[in-house]
Each structure stands twice: as C-alpha cells, then as structure tokens.
C-alpha cells in the first residue's frame, strides 16, 4: 500500500513536470467539457420552459442530474481518463511491455500517469451547478444526505472507471477497438442527456444492467432528493460489484493474452 502511494506521488510529480513543458491546452479539457455541460443546461432550460416534468423530475432535479454527471465526468478527466484512454495504443504498439516489466501494478501506473489538473475547474463548475440545482429544487441539505450522495458519486466514479477499462481491455483480444470506443461515447452522450428515470422496458435493461451509464448520475441524484428505494440501492451495489468482477477478469485475461508488439 505504502509503495503504491509513493508510486502515485511520483506519477503526479512527473505529470506536473510534463504539463509545465506543454502549457498550451492545459485548460483545454475544462473548456471543452465545460461548454458541453453549459449546452446541456441551456437545452433543458428550453425544454422545461415548455413542460413541468420529465420522467417525474422537475427542473431543479434535472440541473442536479447534469451537475452530477458533470462532476463524475470531471473526476474521470482529472484522475484517470487520459491514462486509461492510452491503453489500446500501448497494447497495439507493444509499449505495454514497459508497464508489465516494472515492479508496480501496470493498471495503477497506466491509470494515474496522465492525471490532468487542467480539468480541476470542471469539478468546481460541477459543484456550482449542483448547488444551483439544490437551490432550484429547494432541497433541505443534511449531513447524512450529503454523505450518502458523496458515497454514490465515489461508487459511480469507480463504475465509470471500470467501464472505461472494460472497453479498452478489448484491445488485448481484437486488432481495432475504435468502434467499441465509438459505442461507448454514443452511450455516454445519450445518458449524459437523459436521466435514468426516462428509460423503460428494453432500454432500461440495456442502460441499467448491460451498459449501466443510465444509473451513474441517476442514483446519486435519487439519494440527494430522497427517492432512493432499497431496490435502487441493491441494484446499484450489485451492478458495481458485478462490473468490478468483469473488469478484473477481463484485465487479467487480457494481460495473459498479451503477446507484446503486434498482439
């Protein structure tokens, strides 16, 4: 554990050194994702100017949803996205050898070697959106509710991370996974725009169980507005547990299958 913490510290230090060399675009991810969520807010403001509820949620709850998705996405961008995203290229080029031969967990190093502090303002922006949403929804803020919300946000960040690893681990088995990543971004885009409360039937099965992007921001918001039923809690915990297992199996299987360059 202590060794891993030292490795993480070193990775963060190296990353800062690297970012200081390439200052252009330091805040790029913040502006890109920030604009995306501002567009989302504008879209739903326009829709709510014409309707009162969407899937049982009022404007304030929808703002909370957008803010929460933005927060999960921001944590992803700051901590692990750029590292995880480079996995397919490293498998393809054989660069993965360098990670496997080092005396540190390859996944730990891959996940944390490209942290991106430029996206930190995105976390602040998300928090502002969440506070605005809470004010709009006239929420009564209590410590217990906030702690439960934070618990779900952390859990959903883990789920988000696992989904990214799953999609990228496929590179161990296939030559090109560009289309899988396209599928991932299409699902993300859809669930970023639609709260889980609007899914029904087969769509609910797909986005709650198979590609569980539909629960990522929905469950934390439900916990915040007091709509979290025991069934929701059990379902969310089960999904995170199952996907943790799938991620471990796929990653370990992938490493075993890896044949260095050209695998």
């Amino acid at each position, binding site marked *: 554990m202590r060794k891993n913490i030292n490795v993480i510290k070193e990775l963060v230090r190296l990353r800062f050194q690297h970012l200081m060399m390439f200052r252009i675009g330091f805040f790029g991810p913040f502006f890109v994702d920030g604009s995306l969520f501002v567009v989302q807010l504008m879209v739903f403001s326009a829709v709510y100017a*014409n309707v009162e*509820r969407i899937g049982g949620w009022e404007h304030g709850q929808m703002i909370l949803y957008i803010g929460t998705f933005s927060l999960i996405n921001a944590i992803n961008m700051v901590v692990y996205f750029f590292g995880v995203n480079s996995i397919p290229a490293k498998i393809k080029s054989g660069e993965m050898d360098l990670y496997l031969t080092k005396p540190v967990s390859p996944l730990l190093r891959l996940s944390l070697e490209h942290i991106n502090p430029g996206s930190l303002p995105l976390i602040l922006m998300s928090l502002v959106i969440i506070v605005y949403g809470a004010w709009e929804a006239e929420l009564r803020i209590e410590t217990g509710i906030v702690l439960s919300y934070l618990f779900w946000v952390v859990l959903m960040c883990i789920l988000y991370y696992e989904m990214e690893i799953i999609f990228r681990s496929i590179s161990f088995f296939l030559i090109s996974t560009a289309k899988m990543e396209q599928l991932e971004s299409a699902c993300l885009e*859809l669930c970023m725009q*639609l709260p889980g409360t609007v899914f029904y039937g087969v769509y609910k099965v797909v986005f709650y169980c198979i590609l569980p992007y539909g629960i990522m921001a929905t469950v934390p918001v439900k916990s915040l507005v007091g709509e979290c039923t025991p069934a929701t809690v059990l379902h969310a915990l089960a999904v995170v547990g199952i996907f943790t297992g799938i991620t471990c199996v796929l990653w370990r299987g992938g490493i075993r299958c890896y044949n260095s360059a050209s695998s």
Partner: protein
Amino acid sequence: MRKYREIARTYLKTQLAWRADVLFNMVFTVGRILFAYLLWKVIFAEKDTIGGFTFHGMLSYYIISSFFTQLEMSHGISEEMAARIRNGTFSKYIVIPVNVEGYFAAMESGVVLFYLFFDFAAAFIWIFLFGIEFTLVKDGMIIACALAMVLLGMFFMVQLNFFLGILTFKYEEINTFLMIKNNLIALVTGSIVPLALFPDTIVSFMRFLPFYYVTYLPSMLLTGKCAGEAVRGIIVISCWCIVMQAAIRIAWKRYVRRFDGVGI
C-alpha cells in the same frame, strides 16, 4: 471544374475502403433518434403539443435534422488543416494546381454524395423501427427552398471550417477551440432540440446567424412549419456565404505566408 469533379470522385471512391465505418455510421445515427424518442415519449405522455409539435411531428423533425447533421461532415476540414499545418505537411495542398478551398469543398461533396444513400437508408429504417408517423411537406416549392438552403448551409459550414483551419497558421493550436465549436454548433443548429423551444427573443436573434439555416430551418420547412421564412432564409444564408468568402480571402492572404512547411 473538371479537376474538382475528379477530386470529388476520388474521395467518393476512397470511402469504399472503409465499409465497416459506413455501417457503423449508419448504426450510430440512431443515438440522436433514440434520445429524441425516449425524451419526448415521456414528455408527450402528459401533453399533446409542445412548441407547436405533436409527438410524431417532433420525431419527424429529429429524423430530418439528424439526416442533415449526419451529412454535414465539414468539421474534418478544419481538423485536417490544423493537423497538417502543425506537422508541416500542409504543403501537399499548396503545391497542387488547384484552389485549396475548392479542393476541400470538392472533397466534402465526394464524401457527402457517398453517405447520402446510406444516411437516407438509415433514416428509413429508424422511421419503421420506431413506428414514426412521418410528416413531410407536400409543397414542391417549399421542398426546393429547403434543399437549396441545405446546400448553401453545407457550403457555409465548409467555408467556416476552412476559415478556422486557416487560423492555425496564426494560432498554431486550435483543437480545443474546434471541440468547443462542435459543442456549440450542435446547440445553435437545432440538432439537440428544435430552436422553437427557446424563448422568442433568442430565436429572433438566431435568425440573424447562419446556423439557423444550416439544419434547423430546412428541417422545419420539410416538416411543414415556418413556410414564411423560406425565401428570406435563402437570402440570409447566401449573404453569410459571401461574407465568409471575403473573410477567407483576407485571412488566407494574411496568414498563409506564415507557413514554413517544417511543422511545430
């Protein structure tokens, strides 16, 4: 003109090399339709009309607008220019005996022609799959106006992306800006939600911008709405094309000499 026709034909043929891409592009057009279907089905369960749309009218709008949005692939122009200027290989376009903007316009038309059939097929499939009672205007004049506007709108987008590409000569790194631009374009062209849902003052302001006429107004015209704006729309987008052409000419003259051909 013949050389531009050849360029378009070459790019049309090139698309055949990536057959899987064509298939996946068709499949992924469903994202926007699925978004609209799920969102508006829930909303229309409580109301009959919203912003002048019925449920099937709204889905018809999304089918048409996502068809146009899918065809509009000019963002590749600015990305290609930015990448080549940065790595020093933009000379490839400067040394050939064609107008560079014309080259990119011809390239875009070749790609659009190729995808036209497939996107049309995809739209048909989604109409049947989602059981949409598709609404299409029957007035030939309005259809002609909408198609003319779409062509002008696409040309404007080619110009805009070429102009942004030119800015790489000056600013060197514009990728962040291009990504922000893509996010905003999705909003102002009405491809996420119809602009009719926004307050009147915002819609009135948008009428002065070219993006209103790229996919939103043609889609509205084809679903039988805003007929009174058809002719004015063509005039406004034509004016924007002229303005953008002038801006391109000035920017090209001023910035192309900064290109040293060695990359950054």
